[in-house]
């Protein structure tokens, strides 16, 4: 057991890769076996990752389950893993969402099943690796690797303009991340020049002293990399395309996990590495975040395509998360991290439901539906819960996160918060209106007459998410108590730097007007 716990992170990261390797030897024609095996293995992976949760010490901000081996000595890169309260839940979210999306793909993915399940599992490894790395080079490597399976998932099993979307997705993110790489390497070199220590160790890089002007340039560079991923207005246009054309599983992973990397990157890299620049640029980023909230919501209202609507709602929700993170109070960052989990669950669930509708009717246009509640009461009820969770109804998960974000940001950024709060109204408008047009009223389209309700497998797919919505909404303490120490430490770093920042500000006469 102790050895298991010592290397648990590596086990968790590479177990999916091993699973994929096992699946390589399964006959291509045995699609049922492939699907079942992949689902079972991903469930096993989720169970293993629960050990992290069980053995996680919730009273410290220090990194836990640390593993460290020398890797490329010439670059000072090491295989360095470790998690804190934030990455813990990101890892759990990843393993859960992968399991759920594999379970959801039984009907949706009809051809190239073997390739699909293998790519999904490989993708899982890369995502987990990104969340667990504490070495900048290792992080970057996993970060870029992630794009490859996702590219194929969108490109091969997508619908409509899937190639366009896949290429747009990969070029957007690649452009962002290459600029980011430039920033990270500059910090690496600066650190070497200052200390003579040739290392990519993130914890050591935190101590780099970066001159303020350079910090701002680097922050903007790294901001671009992460902002594309989040995505923040105006870097969001890849998202609706990618979401719309991706298969259900792809959308679920994209919304559930991939978008979190942007925020996670800010949390783990951009802000702690360059706190002063972050503080200086905060107003601009908050403006972008608030624009994202309102913009995403307004554009959602007029969407005709279900998936596109949910995708734009993601833009809006991710704006909330950015607002919470950059308000940089303990409460708002707590809320932000919790909202990352919430968004993964709620939007993931919404995509699952949209996928179910698509599987039955092979259309995603809202106008093609209507009156489904009569034919599929279970689907309607569960879909409703997911919608309400996304709307931020109290008692469900979305509310806790959003409220913490808003209450945490309110004092310092009152105007921004007021605008952001209005986003909640719009969320009600677009989601309820969509739900009404899809589920309620009379059946206008004859094709909906023999609409089938959810199968047992489909219920099992969404049930964990639905239960989590209630659980987080009613008893968020399980999550908050583990997130909080990390967040408090994070905020303390910022506060510490705020002092320095204020000194600089006074010296330079910044923003005196």
């Amino acid at each position, binding site marked *: 057991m102790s050895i298991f716990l010592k290397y648990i992170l590596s086990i968790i990261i590479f177990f999916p890769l091993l699973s994929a390797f096992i699946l390589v030897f399964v006959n291509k024609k045995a699609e049922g076996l492939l699907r079942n095996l992949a689902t079972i293995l991903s469930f096993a992976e989720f169970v293993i990752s629960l050990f992290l949760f069980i053995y996680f010490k919730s009273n410290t901000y220090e990194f836990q389950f640390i593993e460290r081996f020398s890797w490329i000595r010439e670059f000072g890169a090491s295989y360095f893993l470790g998690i804190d309260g934030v990455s813990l839940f990101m890892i759990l979210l990843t393993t859960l969402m992968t399991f759920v999306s594999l379970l959801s793909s039984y009907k949706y993915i009809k051809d190239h099943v073997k390739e699909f399940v293998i790519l999904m599992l490989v993708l899982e490894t890369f995502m987990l690796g990104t969340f667990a790395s504490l070495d900048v080079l290792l992080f970057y490597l996993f970060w870029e690797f992630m794009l490859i399976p996702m590219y194929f998932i969108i490109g091969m099993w997508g619908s409509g303009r899937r190639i366009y979307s896949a290429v*747009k997705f990969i*070029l*957007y993110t690649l452009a962002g991340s290459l600029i980011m790489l430039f920033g990270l390497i500059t910090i690496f070199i600066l650190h070497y020049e200052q200390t003579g220590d040739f290392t990519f160790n993130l914890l050591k890089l935190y101590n780099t002293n970066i001159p303020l002007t350079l910090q701002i340039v680097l922050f903007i560079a790294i901001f671009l990399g992460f902002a594309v991923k989040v995505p923040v207005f*105006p870097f*969001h*246009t*890849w998202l609706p395309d990618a979401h719309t054309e991706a298969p259900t599983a792809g959308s679920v992973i994209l919304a559930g996990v991939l978008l979190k990397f942007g925020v996670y990157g800010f949390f783990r890299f951009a802000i702690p590495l360059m706190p002063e620049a972050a503080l200086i640029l905060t107003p601009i980023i908050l403006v972008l975040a608030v624009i994202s909230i309102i*913009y995403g919501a*307004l*554009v959602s*209202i*007029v*969407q005709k395509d279900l998936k596109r609507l949910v995708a734009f709602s993601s833009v809006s929700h991710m704006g909330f998360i950015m607002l919470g993170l950059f308000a940089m109070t*303990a*409460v708002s960052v*707590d*809320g932000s991290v*919790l909202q990352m989990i919430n968004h993964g669950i709620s939007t993931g669930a919404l995509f699952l439901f949209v996928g179910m509708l698509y599987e039955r009717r092979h259309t995603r246009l809202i106008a093609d539906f209507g*009156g489904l*509640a*009569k034919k599929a009461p279970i689907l309607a*009820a569960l879909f409703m819960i997911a919608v*309400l969770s996304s709307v931020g*109804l*109290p*008692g469900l998960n979305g*509310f*806790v996160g959003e*409220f*913490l974000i*808003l*209450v*945490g940001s*309110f*004092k310092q950024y009152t105007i921004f*918060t*007021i605008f952001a*709060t*209005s986003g*909640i*109204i719009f969320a*009600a*408008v677009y989601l*309820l*209106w969509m739900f*009404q047009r899809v*589920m*309620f*009223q*009379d059946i206008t389209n004859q094709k909906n007459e023999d609409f089938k309700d959810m199968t047992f497998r489909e219920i099992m797919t969404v049930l964990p998410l639905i239960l989590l919505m209630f659980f987080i909404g*009613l*008893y*968020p*303490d399980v999550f*908050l*108590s583990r997130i*909080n120490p990390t*967040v*408090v430490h994070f905020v303390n770093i910022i506060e510490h730097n705020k002092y320095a920042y204020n000194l600089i500000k006074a010296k330079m006469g910044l923003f005196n007007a």
Partner: protein
Amino acid sequence: MNSKDLIVWLIPFFPLLGAILWGVFGKYLKNYSGYLGSLFIVISFILSTVIFFMVAYGHGFTSTLYPWIDASYFKVNVSTTIDRLSVVMLVMVTGISALVHIYSIGYMKDDKGFARYFSYLNLFVFSMIMLIMANNFLMLYVFWEAVGLCSYVLIGFWYEKKSAVEAGKKAFIVNRIGDFGFALGVMLIFITIGTLNYSTVFSDIHTLPPYLITTIALLLLAGAVGKSAQFPLYVWLPDAMEGPTPVSALIHAATMVTAGVYLIARCHVIFSYSPDASDVVLIIGGTTAFIAAFIAMTQFDIKRIIAYSTISQIGYMFMAVGIGSYAAGMFHLLSHAIFKGLLFLTAGSVMHGMSGELDLRKMGGLYSKMKKTAITFIVGGLALSGIPPFSGFFSKDAILASLFNKGDYFFWVIGELVAFMTAFYIFRLIFNVFFGESHVDKNLHVHESPNIMTIPLIILACFAAVFGFIGMPPFNHSIFYNFINKDFANSFNFAPAINNYPWYLLSAVSVIAGLTGIYTAYVFYIKKSFDLEKLKSKFKPIYDLSYNKLYVDEIYDFVIVSPVKNFSIFLWRVVDTIFIDGAVNGIAQWISVTSSKVRKVQNGMLMSYLFTLTLGVIALLAYYFVK
């Protein structure tokens, strides 16, 4: 957990249990859901009564279940506050809910969604109980939204009907607009006071500068205005009548819509520190009372008339709490809950007998066919019109008297005017439905409702008749005032009464106003001394204004809804597709065009490659020399 706590937590537990049972296992428990659901509420009612007497002969207390959110300096528990204000509300809510549940067994008997209906209704009762019992603003907000949700699903209960679904959505969204202010208010309280617990907030609020107190009060008021359907956010309530009638009785008359008044009464400390905000409450209340009564006079849909009446009556309550007569406001809230619940239920009974007909032009002379319903309806109508000895008289009089005694003559006049209009429209309804010649479709078999529906009506009618006596004038010596005002001891900052006219003079004016209204209706609709059509054409602009509900929906649509929608389309089609995607695709286009030009260098000719190679070598060497 001692017995007190246990009882307190059992009150919401039963409705919640019911909601989950019917919600999840509705298919199998369909036949039991009505009776068992009602039983659960009755148990809650009994427990509430127990708590009521515990508090009446003892003290209020708080009880904590578990810590809910604990994020660094933001801590909120799931806990309740039990005091005189909340127990009164508890007894009222559970009592009326129990009656509405029993009534619904009959009313919804043949509906497909029987179990679903009781699940929603139980969920609503749970949320409402929690709203009342909450001991911090966050829980208040949470269940404030939760009752809104229940209202949404119950309005849209018959989801095949487009109008029902639209109405539900409208209710939810309009409420959200109010809640937007409410949420900001809650946040402002947190960041200024540092906690959301009632007791701390109320004891520390005076340390804030006045403008902050006013801001907080106004933001909370926004939530109250939305939920209680006050001007300018009242538009959702008339549409909400698309839901089943017992729902209208319970949610949209007796309990949820009065939550705004409860909120202001609960936060009376905040409002009493902010005279400006209180004045706003008063003005909103007066405006709403008048506008709603004005619209109600010309409507033909019986449920909508009663709905506008509800809006108007809540306007009264707002006026009361606006001048600091919280006890009077609460008293009217309770008596209104009884007689308005009664009116809706009887209207439902009429609908039931008339196979869902709502237009009063197609009724008439029903008295002989449904006596129980008619009599109970008239009792409710008399109570609404403020005719002694029915409850509405006492409670409305308490408000009007305090308006007059505080010197707010303008609003007193409005109040009396509204009293006249109220009596007019409700008796216009009664005369048209129950008396006069019948316009009922000949094929329609009109019948009295079953006992399971009429018994709750009779119980409510009895209460509507006698409830008022606990608020015998003079109001500030009455039983109710003495009971509840202990909780309002903190409210001050309001000028003491400047008039001290004998109560019977003021009461006489109100009664005269009410009787005049009834008589006018009698003259118009029974005696028909005037040609109504002529009257209509004479006052056509005013009549049209009233008949078309002041065009408020159209104005909102023109000023808010369409611009937002068009702006959204602009954002999507222009900003997103043309600007941002245009820029992105433009860059891609530029690269592809440029490279297709540049690639001409790569012409496939080996010889030219060799030249390039040589030139490269030359350039490299040249670089060496330059360097």
